[in-house]
């Protein structure tokens, strides 16, 4: 009994409840003819696709800048990397590496500007971040039309200019990591080893960063900026660094997502990426000023698991084709739930 109580205290009720819901979805799935192995594969792949974007939440939370609602800015850097890599005709590993290579400096540049902006609005970071996300997406919606891209796989066929809303990465670097060292078990299950390894690498880098001098200083800035300042830390510089790091992770995260998904979603695509990432890290047990890698892993598995399972089970149960509607209800419901759980640990 005592150990149970301890476990509940450590895990927290929200995670236990969502975990039990997810488990029961898996248990009832076969009853309506939903294959467990296929669902499990979907969950794992979705975890790998989204994981790095959820990791992107950690630096800003730790530095006291709050949740990165401005993630679309990093995603735009990733999209620019992806489209430029295709424009240059890079294929395969070179294409994916090229996309990352182009995206990182752009993300650093965007992140720097974003960080400087956030340093001017201390206390209201999350509100401003949301609008940074909105306005950058709107601005890029114009840019995708007017930027001089020429590669015929990406531009509108009829006018010959402007990028399409979705660009296929087939023939460039689709599934490049999903298929790397992939393990096939039976006809319906495949483990995307490359994607998961890549996530693990990014998570390890994040972990390692927070074990360096700079990472320690960043955590201290988030924990108590006055203490950090009295220890000779430049609070603004640490905050800017955290925003740059978060933006770079957002950029790499979207590339990982795209290679698995097979398409690049331009225009309003980035809009819909920030909230699930925010929700996942909150469901994982992070607060507005403390987050770690465990929060990310648990939160992403729970969030993406529910998101995969709920629509398919419900659809099968009520014999309808409302998958998209159910998915939206579940996804936004989880986001609302997570945001109500957003706590600020008191000093």
């Amino acid at each position, binding site marked *: 009994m005592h150990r149970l109580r301890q476990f509940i205290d450590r895990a927290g009720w929200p995670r236990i409840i969502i975990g039990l819901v997810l488990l029961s979805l898996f248990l009832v799935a076969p009853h309506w003819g939903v294959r467990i192995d296929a669902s499990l594969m979907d969950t794992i792949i979705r975890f790998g696709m989204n994981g790095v974007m959820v990791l992107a939440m950690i630096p800003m939370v730790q530095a006291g800048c709050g949740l990165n609602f401005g993630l679309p800015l990093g995603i735009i850097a990733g999209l620019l990397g992806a489209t430029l890599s295709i424009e240059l005709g890079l294929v395969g590993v070179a294409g994916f590496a090229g996309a990352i290579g182009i995206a990182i400096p752009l993300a650093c540049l965007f992140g720097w500007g974003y960080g400087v902006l956030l340093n001017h609005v201390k206390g209201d970071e999350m509100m401003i971040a949301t609008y940074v996300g909105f306005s950058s997406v709107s601005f890029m919606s114009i840019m995708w039309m007017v930027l001089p891209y020429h590669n015929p796989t990406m531009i509108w066929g009829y006018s010959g200019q402007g990028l399409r809303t979705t660009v296929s990465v087939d023939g460039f670097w689709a599934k490049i990591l999903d298929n790397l060292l992939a393990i096939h078990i039976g006809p319906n299950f495949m483990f995307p080893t490359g994607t998961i390894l890549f996530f693990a690498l990014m998570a390890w880098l994040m972990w390692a960063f927070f074990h*360096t001098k700079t990472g320690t200083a960043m955590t*201290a800035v988030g924990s108590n900026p006055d203490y950090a300042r*009295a*220890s*000779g830390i430049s609070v603004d510089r640490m905050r800017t660094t955290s925003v740059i790091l978060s933006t770079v992770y957002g950029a790499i995260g979207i590339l990982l997502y795209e290679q698995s998904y097979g398409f690049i979603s331009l225009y309003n695509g980035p809009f819909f990426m920030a909230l699930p990432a925010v929700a996942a890290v909150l469901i994982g047990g992070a607060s507005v000023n403390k987050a770690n890698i465990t929060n990310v892993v648990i939160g992403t598995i729970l969030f993406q698991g529910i998101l995969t399972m709920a629509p398919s089970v419900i659809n099968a149960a009520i014999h309808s084709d409302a998958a998209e509607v159910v998915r939206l209800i579940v996804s936004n419901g989880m986001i609302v739930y997570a945001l109500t759980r957003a706590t600020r*640990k008191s000093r």
Partner: protein
Amino acid sequence: MTQQQPLLKMQGITKEYFGNRVLTDVSLDLNRGEVLGLVGENGAGKSTLMNILFGMSVIVQTGGYAGKVFIDGKEVSFQNPFDALKAGIGMVHQEFSLIPGFTATENILLNGEILHDNIVTKLFGPRLKTLDLPEMRAIAEKSIELLGVEISPDTLVAEMPVGHRQFTELAREIHRPEMKVLVLDEPTAVLTESEAEVLLTSLRRLAATGIAIIFITHRLQEILDICDRIVILRDGQVVKEIATHDTDIGQVAELMVGRSVDTKAIATATYDTQQETVLAVEHLWVDMPGETVRDVSFEVHKGEIFGIGGLAGQGKLGIPNGIMGLCPAGGTVILHGKPIHLEDPAAALAASMAFVSEDRRGVGLLMEEPLDWNIAFTAMQVQNKFLRPLLGGLIKWRDDRAIRKVTREYIEALEIKCTGVEQPAQELSGGNQQKVCLAKAFGVEPNLLFVSEPTRGIDVGAKALVLKALRRYNSENGTTIVMVSSELEELRSICDRIAIIDEGRVAGILSPAATAKEFGMLMIGKLKNTDDKVVSHA
């Protein structure tokens, strides 16, 4: 006057905060038309006594008080300030409680507006009554006039000079006809000398109308000027109640500051006046809110424990905060012959100075982080201690093992009570938190250590341990220490020389062996216009 029943009588008032006794058997009487001066050092219990009188919720929440309060011979016990207001007690606080966007009239009659019925109130009830502005204006004018000042009732508070705000606040209290006892907490602190004079004249005039006044200030001259009687509090007890014409400023200062010097505490053999100068401060100004430093110069010698004392708000706290770069500052600070770049904490730390802040929770600690981080962080960031270079120094990896080791050493050396190095700082008691702050400062192995209010808010036993740790660090490592404290006795027990700060300037530097009277006189600014009298025993 003494034969009639006193208007206000407080009898045997005793109050504890969490087992810490702050008032012991305090009794006082107040007659109609009398002005009573209440004096005492910071923490002597003045504010607590007045909070009890005013029924402040902090008193009820912490378990009430023992003793009785009578008004006009009837026993009263206020549960909240509204009860006190109804009974005719008014209070003017040190901080203004006025609405800046309202006019003087609106502020004076706030919640006491003159109202008229109109057609709408018949339908929707009394909340929609009309204000009688001309009548309100007249009342406000009358009560301002009573104070003998000229303030237009239509001026917005936001546009008033500070002095006028103080008068507006006073006018708000006195406009009520039931007003009997008026409590003024440091009303002249923000006023210029001429404004203060006008205020004192108004108070005399008010007293003549039969209102009794309790006047709290640390400017003793004002007390002597207008009060009939003086009650001196020290450590929660009434040490003396005396008629003004029977005393002088020196006696009051001495009674206020305290015990005659305890010679056993003064044993400072380590200090030698011939030692070289470590720190030279010239014309330092610091813009620290509430603790402005105007023009401070002093020198600190090697191996010395230099004390800085003075009353709250006079600027003593601004000195270390300014030198350590935490507040906007100017002037010259020279350490070991090299000027220190001000307004840059990193530069101050790099010059081998360290600072234990008076704001333990706000600046001193990472409350949510474990003890090892708290203790090692500054040394890690400033001096690259506890770091392992990886990839040829490209990456500076935190050496958690070394951090825990040094933390355990400090926990043992300073007797920090905790469950281990992983315990978050917020779970420790105040005294142990203070020791963590000391460990953090010791960790950078400073040549010069600033310690600000090291014993504030911690219990007596922990106080002794903290002071002992400082003294030992000073004698074992030869570290020069500058200690800022509100508690004069504490400074006298440990320091080699003590500077007293008054109104942002050094009022004088004394030896700890100087008499309480000398310290008291410096603290209340009695000698500030006579520079030649500034004494230096050291």
